[in-house]
């Protein structure tokens, strides 16, 4: 829609006058020098074309690999589209020399990411990178990263994070990991194991052996630690595992079944459901003191608790009004969040605090959506038969979830989508994967 900006533009006032809307124009305005003005509201929602040539210096293969990881990260975000290197008409000789932007503009690039690799005296590899805005011909970032040779992907993710942050304005999230439930075997005899991988699907590592059923892993927002459910026979237990050391602990010793655990923002407490007959209530467990506090009272089902980032409120699902809906409890009591049709479950508060993701069951389908913490602005981000288990990237702009495919050979796969709903893509896993949990930034 085109609108005219009437602020202090003489000719625009005159135009308004001609439309019969204003009468205050003085006759002498025609002598003011001509100036055209207007407003732009329509534009493209499209990825920005970027050029990421092979990083120079050191091992050419490593230079290429590093550049590929950076380009892939940015491309996977959906906000950028890396240009095929075959189209390049220029080569980077020195990252500290301003590039010939005309050559990069010619191939349609709007940004250029260059890097130079080297070796630190302690043997670690080093990456020095520069981000250029090719259109405005200005340097946007210059950073240096170092890592052990085997952790070379991490410095590529970190470089991509810097470029993403500078170019898009969004927070970093590439230098992260995903814990998920790796599923293998036939559908009726699935083996479910906890696994961890980089957010781009690389470096998959199994965390559990598959003897016990594992479900709903959730990351500690401030540590490389997860809590999850482990079922040995009919007995379900809440577990906490340190990712790096592999140490695992049973949390609490409750009368009744505990499930759906999740960390508090400070990582010191867990909230979870405690089943009692057909009902379930919410409880909070202090991990240091082991003290337990009931958060809800009375009959009914209350489950899926998720803290707000400031730790002052908890979103949860409940059937207290007859159907499965979302609620928020805080100092002021409990208020209902969801008002739309369908059944809502698994609310997950964004790390930024501005959205709550949820699963919505409606017309036989499971959808992933977001809404604001006051219940407004509900938007469905996914379509499909069965979507479940949303988890937030640390930047609060990207969600990962799993989608179940139908049929005997069907199974769950991981997907990511940003909250525009535009940029959905599948996240590679070795087999089927479900219940993803996004880690905080590694550095």
């Amino acid at each position, binding site marked *: 829609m*085109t609108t*005219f*900006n009437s602020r202090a*533009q003489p*000719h625009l006032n*005159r*135009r308004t*006058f*001609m*439309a019969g809307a204003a*009468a*205050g*124009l*003085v*006759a*002498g305005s*025609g*002598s003011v*020098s*001509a*100036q*055209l*003005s*207007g*407003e*732009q*509201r*329509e*534009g*493209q*929602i*499209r990825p*920005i074309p970027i050029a990421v040539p092979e990083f120079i210096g050191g091992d050419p293969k490593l230079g290429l690999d590093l550049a590929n990881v950076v380009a892939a990260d940015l491309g996977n*975000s*959906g*906000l950028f589209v890396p240009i095929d290197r075959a189209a390049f008409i220029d080569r980077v000789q020195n990252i500290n020399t301003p590039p010939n932007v005309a050559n990069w503009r010619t191939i349609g690039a*709007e940004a250029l990411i260059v890097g130079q690799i080297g070796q630190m005296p302690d043997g670690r590899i080093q990456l020095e990178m520069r981000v250029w*805005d090719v*259109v*405005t011909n200005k340097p946007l970032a210059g950073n240096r990263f170092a890592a052990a040779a085997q952790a070379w992907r991490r410095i590529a993710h970190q470089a991509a994070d810097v470029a993403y942050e500078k*170019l*898009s*304005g*969004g927070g970093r999230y590439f230098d992260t990991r995903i814990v998920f439930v790796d599923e293998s075997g036939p559908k009726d005899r699935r083996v479910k194991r906890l696994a961890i991988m980089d957010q781009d699907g690389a470096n998959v590592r199994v965390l559990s052996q598959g003897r016990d059923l594992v479900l709903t892993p959730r990351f500690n927002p401030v540590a490389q630690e997860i809590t999850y459910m482990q079922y040995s026979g009919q007995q379900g237990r809440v577990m906490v595992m340190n990712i790096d050391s592999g140490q695992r602990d049973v949390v609490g010793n409750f009368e009744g079944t505990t499930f759906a655990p999740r960390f508090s923002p400070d990582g010191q407490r867990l909230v979870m459901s405690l089943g009692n007959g057909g009902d379930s209530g919410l409880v909070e467990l202090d991990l240091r003191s082991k003290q337990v506090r009931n958060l809800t009272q009375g009959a009914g089902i209350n489950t899926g608790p998720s803290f707000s980032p400031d730790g002052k409120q908890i979103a949860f699902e409940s059937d207290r009004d007859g159907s499965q809906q979302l609620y928020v409890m805080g100092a002021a009591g409990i208020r209902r969040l969801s008002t739309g049709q369908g059944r809502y479950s698994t609310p997950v508060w964004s790390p*930024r605090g*501005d*959205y709550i993701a949820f699963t919505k069951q409606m017309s036989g389908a499971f959808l992933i959506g977001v809404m604001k913490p006051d219940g407004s602005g509900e938007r469905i981000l996914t379509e499909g038969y069965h979507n479940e288990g949303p988890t937030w990237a640390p*930047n*609060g*702009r*990207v969600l990962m979830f799993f989608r179940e495919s139908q049929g005997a050979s069907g199974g769950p796969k991981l997907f990511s989508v*940003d*909250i*525009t*709903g*535009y*940029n959905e893509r599948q996240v590679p896993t070795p087999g089927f994967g479900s219940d993803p949990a996004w880690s905080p930034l590694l550095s």
Partner: protein
Amino acid sequence: MSFGLVISVLLHVGILGWALIGFNASKPLKLPEEIPVEVSIISAIDLELRQKKGDSLSKIEEAAQSVGKAPSPKDAPKPKPVRAVEPPPAAEPPPPAAPPEPVKVEPPPAPEPPKPDQIAALIEKAPPPPTPEGPTPDDQKKLEEKLAEQQRQDEIKKTEELRKAEQKKAELKKAELKKAELKKAELKKAELAKKSKSFDQQMADLLNKVPDQPSAAAGADTPPSKPTTAKGPTAGTKTGTDNVNKARAEQMLVALLNSAFKECWSKPLAGGGVSAPAVKLKWNLNPDGTLSGEPKIVQTDRGNPLAEQAERAAIRAVQTCVPFQLPPDQYAVWREITWNFNPDQAL
């Protein structure tokens, strides 16, 4: 060229119009031919037959009169053609004092003194005694022939007279029409002459997009010969600036730029959820549509976390769009551009 075309079209239309009216006017000329035919029915033969049947003379006279004066109120719903025909059917010249108006010719039910009628007179003159002998076949024949001859001559005379009258009338009408047409044409010519300047100027303004040509004031038919004396706000300058055309030209340019930026401007999104601020840029352009200098940020919201990205996106939009394809003859209007890039509601 357009002026000549307009005049030519107008004259042709006028001639065609006159031709149509002329044809319509000549139609009534046919009527007198019909009437004498009807009169001939009330001939001596008819008379004889009636006499044989024993119709009274007055009745016959009446019938003859009614037929001869043909138009009855029913038959003459339109007075104009009747008036155009005018002639009484008989050989007798029409009394000038009593034009045969439809109302007046209404046949009176009671016998009244018949108006002088040729047939009636002949009937009177003829040996009428309703005696069994009656006129001889020879007499009848002679009478018939005489009547017919006289009637024919009268007819011709009448027709000739009518034709002359109609001709005269038509000529008069034609002259009148011509006069009127000429007058009209003259008026239009004058009007066109008056308008032509502003029209040409308007066209020139639209085509050349040259603003503020002191030609015709918006909405005025005549160019102002001197500055207005009107008080208060006026549409345009005192010298008659064409603001309407200028506004239209600007709207067109704004639409062109909106369309260009719709393609060139990638909205700053940052993965959604955050509303990037509106950024207002100002830049100058060379006549070939290329940038003259760098775009300057006139207005932004540095408090917004996406301010930097929004500013760059706006600058990128301008630099990606150059050279702008804008009408070169409106360079004066688009030489300096201020544009507000408003991402509006974030997704």
